[in-house]
């Protein structure tokens, strides 16, 4: 358990700088000397936080912290991690400016002032003071007072290998990078890693060269880091992370929300129009994210009185409401939200849509090198049937694809706030201002990367704004494309078109869609049971009699046939809408006609009776439709025909004098042949030859 005491409760206001010292089983005498040097600073409103990462002598450390008026946080830990210790300290620190350092580094009195001055000139930076090493004889015991001129003359300057024991930056930068890398244990590499990520995210590294700012390393006997095989392995692991991991945002399973002023890493923006009908589902999906350091900015764009109670019911301090009064359109609402957002990244969400739980985690993890954000695939779902349509998005985000190709869903984007502060939604476009925005961002050369996953469910229903304004939407996108294309030569236009075609859709595993289905609203889902037989079922009349009886009781069965050899039935899927039949009962009943290899519960949208049909529809696209026929009750004859030519079919009860037969999409020749062979069984205006 963490033990925390926060000095700002006593100070009562935010200090200009929080000094964070991470320690574990540290020499207390050195720690005292280090704290004394900070307390001698001519910057008076300093906050010092001691982050004790599992010291054996924690009570002694705490006493020192109390004696010098420092904040103190203790973390129970088996292995020393300087990164985790600093992050824990920053979490409870109360200043917007952070100085991380060690318990054996002393600072000259004007160092803090210089660092703060530099930070005010370069807010997006990491300020580093080059450390000087004190020689033997200048240990803690010899530093009862500080003669800075003497210390300067006896010390030796340390090369710029690392960050030299201190780094100063803003809390906003900390939130953007989401802390020091906690996979790095013990110490070594974490400062460098932090600075490299800061630079890739747009913050510069400044080596402070003001002689008034001096820091010294108190002499002590070298520690044992790296001496043992385990230590060497740790150093190697840290080095690998530093060299090979090009991501910017880290520690995505952790949260640094604390009692201190919190700067969220992400602002989720949800503009809400006049009908916040699906808002609860939408908000819940945001709050269930695996990455939790976000704020949720709800913009009421004429949504009326009903909104506030819905938000209050969530009782979550991360939810902020911006009320705009009259509706001015989504572009205006989103621009207003950008102006108020505190997060370093903004993701636009819709009150109609559902975020997949790992959306933020995956999109943040995808931001590599100097990318300003990421995007992902979206899955459209019909609000009545749950039918799915996929928009995986293009693999690369570029100007050509925006000018010619299908756009990734706007609500799958996560972008740096500063990009959206410059590139705003054009409020003149009542719909699809997002397309125009993305077009301009692509043209600007802002780098965004595909995260390689589906990240959001997009609701599609009759009242969807995209549907309502479809007639306006096409011209808007067309205008935007035309503006972009009209300014380039015909040759260049041709080149861009070619480049767009060369940018393929992102490839994502269908299993991801199937896994995501459980996050759809429960009312759109149906459970079923798929029984796979060890060998294809025998084509005996007893088998077909049993199947007819099962069909009568379960009302619908999906049959899958052996694609080679016997062409017999290899699996059946039965809906689980009958509460009276347990899964075990069903399995034991079907075991009478064949040995069951596996019995799996399947959760699918209502639109899909079974998994193969869902897979087929998603892979072949909505244009390739299957066929539905009314057939008589000769189940044996029907299944024998289907088994020879089709991989699967669905038989359902409900027709007055027969069954409903759903066939998968078939090729022209196969379709003609199957329809001809089924001719004798059809009930649609034809005689039914046989009855079971």
């Amino acid at each position, binding site marked *: 358990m963490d033990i925390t005491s926060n000095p700002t409760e006593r100070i009562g206001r935010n200090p200009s700088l929080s000094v964070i010292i991470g320690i574990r089983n540290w020499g207390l005498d050195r720690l005292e000397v280090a704290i004394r040097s900070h307390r001698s600073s001519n910057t008076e409103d300093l906050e010092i936080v001691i982050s004790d990462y599992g010291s054996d002598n924690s009570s002694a450390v705490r006493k020192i912290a109390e004696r010098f008026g420092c904040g103190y946080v203790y973390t129970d830990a088996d292995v020393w991690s300087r990164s985790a210790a600093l992050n824990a300290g920053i979490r409870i620190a109360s200043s917007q400016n952070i100085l991380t350092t060690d318990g054996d580094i002393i600072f000259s009195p004007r160092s803090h002032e210089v660092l703060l001055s530099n930070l005010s000139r370069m807010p997006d930076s990491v300020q580093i003071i080059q450390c000087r090493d004190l020689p033997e004889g200048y240990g803690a015991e010899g530093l009862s007072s500080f003669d800075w001129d003497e210390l300067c003359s006896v010390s030796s300057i340390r090369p710029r290998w690392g960050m030299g024991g201190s780094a100063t930056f803003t809390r906003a930068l900390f939130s953007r990078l989401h802390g020091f890398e906690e996979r790095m244990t013990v110490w070594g590499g974490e400062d460098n890693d932090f600075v490299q990520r800061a630079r890739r995210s*747009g913050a510069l590294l400044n080596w402070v060269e003001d002689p008034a700012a001096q820091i010294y390393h108190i002499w002590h006997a070298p520690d044992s880091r790296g001496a043992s095989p385990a230590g060497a392995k740790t150093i190697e692991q840290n080095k690998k992370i530093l060299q090979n991991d090009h991501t910017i945002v880290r520690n995505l399973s952790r949260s640094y929300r604390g009692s201190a002023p919190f700067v969220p890493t992400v602002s989720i923006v949800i503009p809400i129009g006049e009908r916040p009908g699906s808002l609860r589902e939408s908000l819940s999906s945001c709050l269930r994210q695996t990455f939790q350091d976000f704020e949720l900015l709800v913009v009421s764009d004429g949504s009326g009185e009903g909104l506030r109670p819905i938000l209050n019911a969530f009782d979550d301090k991360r939810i902020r409401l*911006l009320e705009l009064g009259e509706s001015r359109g989504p572009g205006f609402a989103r621009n207003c939200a950008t102006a108020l957002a505190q997060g370093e990244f903004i993701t636009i969400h819709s009150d109609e849509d559902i975020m997949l739980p790992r959306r933020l985690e995956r999109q943040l993890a995808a931001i590599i090198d100097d990318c300003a954000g990421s995007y992902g695939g979206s899955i459209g779902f019909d609000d009545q049937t749950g039918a799915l349509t996929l928009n995986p998005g293009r693999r690369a985000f570029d100007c050509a694809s925006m000018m010619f190709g299908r756009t990734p869903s706007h609500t799958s984007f996560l972008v*740096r706030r500063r990009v959206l502060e410059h590139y705003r939604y054009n409020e*003149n476009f009542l719909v699809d201002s997002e397309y125009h925005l993305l077009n301009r961002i692509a043209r600007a050369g*802002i780098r965004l990367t595909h995260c390689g996953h589906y990240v959001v469910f997009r609701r599609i229903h009759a009242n969807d704004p995209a549907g309502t304004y479809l007639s306006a939407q096409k011209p808007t996108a067309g205008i935007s494309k035309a503006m972009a294309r009209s300014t380039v030569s015909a040759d260049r236009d041709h080149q861009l078109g070619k480049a767009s075609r060369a940018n393929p859709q992102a490839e994502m595993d269908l299993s991801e869609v199937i896994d995501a289905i459980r996050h759809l609203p429960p009312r759109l889902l149906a459970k079923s049971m798929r029984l796979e037989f060890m060998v294809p079922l025998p084509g005996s009349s007893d088998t077909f009699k049993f199947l007819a009886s099962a069909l009568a009781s379960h009302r619908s069965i999906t049959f899958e046939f052996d694609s080679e050899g016997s062409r017999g039935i290899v699996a059946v899927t039965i809906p689980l809408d009958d509460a009276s039949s347990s899964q075990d009962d069903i399995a034991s009943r079907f075991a009478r006609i064949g040995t069951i290899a596996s019995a799996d519960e399947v959760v699918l949208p209502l639109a899909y009776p079974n998994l193969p049909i869902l897979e087929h529809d998603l892979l072949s696209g909505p244009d390739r439709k299957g066929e539905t026929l009314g057939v008589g009750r000769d189940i044996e004859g029907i299944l024998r025909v289907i088994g020879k030519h089709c991989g699967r079919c669905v038989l359902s009860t409900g027709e007055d004098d027969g069954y409903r037969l759903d066939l998968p999409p078939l090729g022209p020749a196969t379709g003609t042949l199957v329809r001809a062979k089924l001719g004798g069984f059809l009930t649609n205006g034809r005689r039914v030859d046989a009855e079971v």
Partner: protein
Amino acid sequence: MKTETVIESSERTTTVRYTPENYDAYPPAAMAWVDGRVIERNRDREAAAHALLLFPFVSGRLCPARGCGVDVAKPLRELFLPRNVLIEGVEMAPARIPTGTRTAIVCDGSYRSAALLKTRKADLSFRLSESAYTTLIGPRNVVVASNFGVFANQEGQLNILVPAIAAALLFCEDLGIVRLVLPVHDLTAEEAELLGRLSALLASVNISVETPLLGMDFAALSRSLPDLSGLEIFLAERHEHITCVEDLPDFWLAQLLLAQASGDRTATTQARDRVKILLRRGCRLSAGEQDLLSSAQSASNGQVIAQPDMKSTT
């Protein structure tokens, strides 16, 4: 930071390419570009433009591909203070320094820009546009389609102008510009320092900087503002993403100044309240503008605010 200007004739764009080095930050876009070809490319002005454009991102050293003259190297280095930035490729041989005759107002679409048009007679107005697809170069107006604006990464009246100054610098010789007028009125201490260093840098390449509004009393500034309809047209043309100028804090700040100047208490209250609403929606004001708002608040609470200049206008 290694920098280079590339003219891509097939695309009619001028691109600034860069390669960040050890201490540099990575800029927000893959490259910086302006739509349009810069014809006359003076080496020193190009280096100064690169330095200004990439000002928030350079640390360690600046290496313009074509180098720079020795007389430009010092102000270039000092521009970055307190960063210690080394300038690479410094040439000792004397080189031509371009000149010109024209004065350009660098427009940022603020009410200050509108006031500047009346305060300072200029030959042309120069501004950047992120939403225009082509550059417009006319005798009196230059609107440069560009992504330079996204390179400004700090708040502040001068900070947000710096990329536009960099772009203007690239076009200065072609357009005969020798003087830039900046619509700054109220700078932070850091920006005031930067203005001094920036002016010294531009002076070294024969461009002078004027800031006629800097530190001017708000009452005097209000006398330079256009009337309501003029203001609406000015702001609407320069803020292409909006549908209504009343959404802009600049509109209401100008209204506040005009109302105070005319002694119209009702209009003052309305403008003050609208600015306060916009503040709650995240708009940011300079320290001077915050004082202006406070004084309007105090006035409506019945306190008498001493405004000597106002008396002469009411």
